[in-house]
C-alpha cells in the first residue's frame, strides 16, 4: 500500500511541473498584454511600463522567476488589483465555493436517490421518465438554462432576484444577510445542479444495475432477506464504493467557479473575476489561478486513486 501511495505521489511532481510549463507558455502566447489595455499610451510610455513590470525579459527567464515564486507560495501580484493574487483569490473564491458546495450537495443527494430507485425499478415508467429527464438535463447549454431560469423565475414571476449576491443599499447583518444571500443563491444553485445531475444519475443507476445482477445479491435474496434489506444494505454499499473516488474529483470544481453561471447571474465569484482578468490580460492573476486549479486537480486525482486503492485491493497490485 505504501509503495502504491509513494509511487502515485512521485507521479505528481512531473505532472505539476509539466502543467506549470504548459500554463506559463500558453499564456505567454496569447496576444495582448495588460499594459495594452490602455489605448491612450504612447509607445514610449508603453516601453517604460514594460520595463517597469519586467515584461521585456525573455520568456524563459520570466518562467523561472514565476516558478521560483510559486515554490515560495507566492502566486504573483495582480496587475489590475494591485494586490497579491492570493488576496484577490481569497476575496472571491468563497462566494464561488458556497454555490458550488450547495450544488454539490444537492446534485449528489438527488442523483443518488433517483439513480438507485431507477435501477431497482428498471424499465418501469419511473425509469423511462427519469432517463428522459436526465438526457434532457445533459443536453441544455448551461447559459441557455440560466437565461431561461432568470426569465421565468426572476423577471416574469419575480420569485427570486435576477442576479447578484446581495441586495444593495439594504444593510443586512446576521440572519437577514444570510437569508439575503440564500435567496440570491437559489437560481444559480438550481441551474448548476440541473446541469450536473444528468451524468451522475446515470452513473449511479448503471452501477446499481451492475451490482444488483451479481451473485452475492442473488445469494442474499436466496437467503430470504427482505428486498429492501437486500438493496439498501448489501447492494447499495457495493455500488457506492466506486462513487467515493468520483467524489474526490469534485474538489477542483468546488473552487474553480462556474464561469458561465457566474456570468449569467452576475455572481461575484472567482469565475467572473477570471473572465474579467482574461479580458485585461492580468496574467499573474490568470496564471496563479490556473495553477491553483491544476494543483487541486492533481491532488484530487491522487486522493481518488488512493481511495480507489483502499476500496479495491486488486488495483494496488498493479
Amino acid at each position: 500500500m505504501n509503495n502504491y501511495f509513494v509511487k502515485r505521489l512521485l507521479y505528481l511532481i512531473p505532472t505539476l511541473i509539466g502543467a506549470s510549463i504548459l500554463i506559463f507558455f500558453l499564456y505567454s502566447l496569447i496576444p495582448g498584454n495588460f499594459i495594452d489595455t490602455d489605448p491612450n499610451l504612447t509607445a514610449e510610455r508603453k516601453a517604460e511600463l514594460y520595463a517597469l513590470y519586467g515584461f521585456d525579459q525573455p520568456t524563459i527567464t520570466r518562467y523561472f522567476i514565476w516558478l521560483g515564486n510559486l515554490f515560495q507560495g507566492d502566486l504573483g501580484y495582480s496587475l489590475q488589483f494591485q494586490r497579491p493574487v492570493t488576496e484577490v483569490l481569497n476575496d472571491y473564491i468563497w462566494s464561488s465555493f458556497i454555490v458550488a458546495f450547495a450544488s454539490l450537495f444537492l446534485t449528489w443527494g438527488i442523483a443518488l436517490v433517483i439513480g438507485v430507485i431507477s435501477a431497482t425499478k428498471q424499465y418501469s415508467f419511473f425509469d423511462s421518465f427519469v432517463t428522459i429527464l436526465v438526457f434532457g438535463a445533459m443536453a441544455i447549454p448551461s447559459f441557455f438554462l440560466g437565461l431561461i431560469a432568470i426569465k421565468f423565475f426572476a423577471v416574469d414571476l419575480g420569485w427570486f432576484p435576477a442576479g447578484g449576491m446581495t441586495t444593495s443599499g439594504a444593510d443586512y447583518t446576521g440572519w437577514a444577510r444570510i437569508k439575503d444571500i440564500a435567496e440570491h443563491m437559489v437560481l444559480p444553485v438550481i441551474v448548476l445542479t440541473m446541469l450536473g445531475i444528468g451524468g451522475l444519475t446515470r452513473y449511479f443507476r448503471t452501477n446499481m444495475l451492475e451490482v444488483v445482477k451479481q451473485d452475492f445479491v442473488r445469494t442474499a435474496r436466496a437467503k430470504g432477506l427482505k428486498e429492501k434489506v437486500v438493496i439498501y444494505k448489501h447492494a447499495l454499499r457495493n455500488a457506492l464504493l466506486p462513487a467515493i473516488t468520483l467524489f474526490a474529483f469534485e474538489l477542483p470544481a468546488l473552487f474553480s467557479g462556474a464561469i458561465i453561471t457566474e456570468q449569467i447571474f452576475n455572481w461575484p465569484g472567482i469565475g467572473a473575476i477570471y473572465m474579467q482578468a482574461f479580458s485585461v490580460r492580468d496574467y499573474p492573476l490568470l496564471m496563479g489561478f490556473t495553477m491553483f486549479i491544476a494543483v487541486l486537480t492533481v491532488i484530487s486525482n491522487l486522493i481518488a486513486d488512493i481511495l480507489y486503492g483502499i476500496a479495491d485491493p486488486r488495483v494496488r497490485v498493479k
Partner: protein
Amino acid sequence: MAYSSNEMIQSGHTVQKSSLWKEVLKRFLKRKMAIAGLLILLLVFLFSFVGPFFSPYMTAGTNSQAIHQAPNLSHWLGTDHLGRDVLTRLMLAGRISLTVGIGAMFLAVTIGGILGILAGYYGGIIDQIVMRIADILMTLPGLPLLFIMAAIMSEWQVPAEQRLYIVMIMLSLVNWPSLARLIRSQVLSLREREFMVATEVLGLRDKRKVLNHLLPNVVPLLIVTATLSVGGAILSESVLSFFGLGVVPPTASWGNMINTANTLIDFTNRPWLWIPPGVAIFITVIAVNLLGDGLRDSIDPNMKGR
C-alpha cells in the same frame, strides 16, 4: 490445410464479424429510444441542410424595413434586428453547429484514438509520454483552456469561412485526452485477451496485429464514444459562440444566435430570437445522446457505462 494460418484467423474473424454486426443491428432496432434519436437527428440534418432551399429568404440580406418582427405568416419565427428571417437563420446555423460538432468529434476521436491505441499497445515510453501529456492537459480547467486557445488562434489571420475549422481544432484539442485514456484502457484489457495472445504466438507483425485484430475490437467503443461526444462538441461550440469566440457574424451558429439576443429588451420581449436556437441545440444533443446510448447498449449489452 489449404489455408495458411493467417488466412484461417482472418477468415474466422470475418465470419465472426459480420454476424456480430447483424446482431448489433437487430438489438439496435429493438430499442425504441435509440431509433427515435436517430430519426430526430436525421430530421435535424434535413432541416439544416435541405431546409434552406425551401426558404424564400435564403439569399436575402438585411432588410431594415422588417426588423424586430414577432412571428407572423411571412416569417414563421419572426425577424431579428437586421430584418433577417429567424427560421432561415436557424437552419443555416444548424449547418454550422452540426458541422463543427461532427468535425470536432472526428478530430478528437482520431487523435485520441490513435494516441490511445499506441499508448495502450506499445506501453513503455510511448505510454508514459502520451499519458503524461494527456494528464497535464487535463489538469487545466476546460473553459479557460478554450479561451486561451481562442485567443492564441485569433492571431492567425483566418478568413471568416474557415473560422469553423479553427473552432473544430480547438474543441478537439481539449477533448482528446479523455478519449485517449478511454481507448487506452480498452486496449490494455484487450491486449491480454486470447485472440491477441494468439496473434502474438503466430508471430504477426505489429501493424497487422493492430490494424486487423486490435482495431476492429476497439471500433465499437470508438463509435459509441464518438457519437456521444458530438453532443458535447455541439454544446461547447455554442458556449464558444456565446462568448464571441466561435464563428463570426454574419455567419450564424446556434450559439451566437442566442448571444445576439443578450440585451435586456431582446431577452424579455423578443423570445423568438433566442429560444429557438436553444431548443434546437437541446433537441439535437438529446437525439445524439439517445443514439449513442442505444448504440452502446446494442454493441455490448454487458458494457459498462462511462
